[in-house]
């Protein structure tokens, strides 16, 4: 995983992001960081401009005459419910960057849900995001979005494969400083899980979420007994 605290690694990651060689996990994490880090967006902008001339190595291809019409039709649908904002708040920007990748797209759905909720004037509740990665392969499998007082969403973003026959995937959380993890139930491959946050012992930054491989009916001990398949901790948004 990229350490975005390190100046050299930040610039390298920005270059590889533009080049397209970050793997899915790195890309999701990078795009999450982009949403809250204007300096990182500036590094990306500089790399975009450095490498832009390489785009002329691909020969031009004339689009079908109907393509523009198709785009226009989609705009009609797409922009109808949107209201113009003078200055988009930072989380609207996050949506753009995250819209740039497939995995990010799932994150942007999460952010989109937040966006909708924002239209209801309520006191802002703290929001957190965790990217769950495979400790073996480093690949991203899930994103957790949680907002204090509301719901937790566990969204699959990568190819997480299938639950082996006779086994189950169990979802856990451990808030920072807690003695041990709390089970949040079993999860199914490729399905978004939504839970009321009242099921969680707490909600905060650096809160651990993980998915472990357990017997078919879940861990018999109330504690993880099998290997960790995906793990990550929250960052505040």
């Amino acid at each position, binding site marked *: 995983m990229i350490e975005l605290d390190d100046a050299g690694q930040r610039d390298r990651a920005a270059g590889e992001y533009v080049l397209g060689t970050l793997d899915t996990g790195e890309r999701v994490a990078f795009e999450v960081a982009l949403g809250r880090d204007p300096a990182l967006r500036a590094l*990306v902008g500089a790399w975009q401009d*450095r490498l*832009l001339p390489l785009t*002329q190595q691909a*020969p031009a291809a004339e689009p079908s005459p109907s*393509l523009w019409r198709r*785009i226009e039709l989609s705009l009609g649908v797409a922009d109808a419910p949107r209201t113009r904002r003078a200055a988009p708040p930072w989380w609207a920007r996050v949506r753009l960057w995250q819209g*740039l990748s497939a995995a990010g797209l799932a994150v942007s759905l999460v952010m989109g849900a937040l966006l909708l909720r924002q239209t209801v004037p309520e006191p802002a509740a703290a929001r957190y995001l965790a990217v769950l990665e495979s400790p073996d392969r480093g690949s991203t499998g899930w994103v957790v979005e949680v907002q204090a007082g509301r719901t937790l969403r566990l969204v699959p973003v990568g190819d997480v494969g299938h639950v082996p026959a006779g086994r189950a995937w169990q979802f856990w959380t451990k808030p920072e400083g807690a003695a041990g993890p709390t089970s949040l139930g079993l999860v199914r491959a490729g399905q978004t899980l939504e839970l009321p946050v009242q099921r969680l012992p707490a909600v905060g930054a650096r809160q651990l979420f993980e998915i472990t491989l357990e017997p078919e009916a879940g861990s018999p001990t109330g504690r993880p007994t099998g290997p960790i398949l995906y793990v990550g901790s929250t960052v505040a948004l």
Partner: protein
Amino acid sequence: MAATVAGTSSAGDHMPSHDAPFDYESAVMACARGERYALQSLYQRESRWLLGVALRIVRDRPRAEDVLHDAFVQVWQHAATFDPALGSARGWLYTVVRHRALNAVRQPDRLVSLDPDALARWSDAGQAEANDGDRGLDADSLERCLDRLEAPRKACVVFAFVDGFTHEQIAERMATPLGTVKSWIRRSLAALKECLA
């Protein structure tokens, strides 16, 4: 863009365009204000190049058109997030299209099958397409800097950016260990940055 003279690098001193320079930044900002003609002007100006870039990565024309469609919808919806202080509008536009195309080929169920001739076609990687007209890009500096890299390292950068290959695909195509490819790319980017500074 074929005739390049090493050393002439300042933007704007290359071949003259036939008309006044297109203002990409203004067009994107007009999109943010909901002015649809601005999106159309971007499309008219750039779509054949953008489709070419997408087609090269996804290798399938209907899918490339889907990528371009989705990218233009995204540009329209998110134009307000473009910040001209952070880079050019054209760079932003190509990043939107390229990442859309990369998504299309990197879906878990859609692993791209590599064209066996890909490597052969790219034995001359780095040669700019000479017959597609002037796009007003300052390609000379980047070309000169790429030419300073050893040929296999230059090919890695081109495979990644132009063909949208992953580290693994590049390693396979070049019959080179994965770690070597990763380190070549890392060092090539650092060298390009220094050369272009």
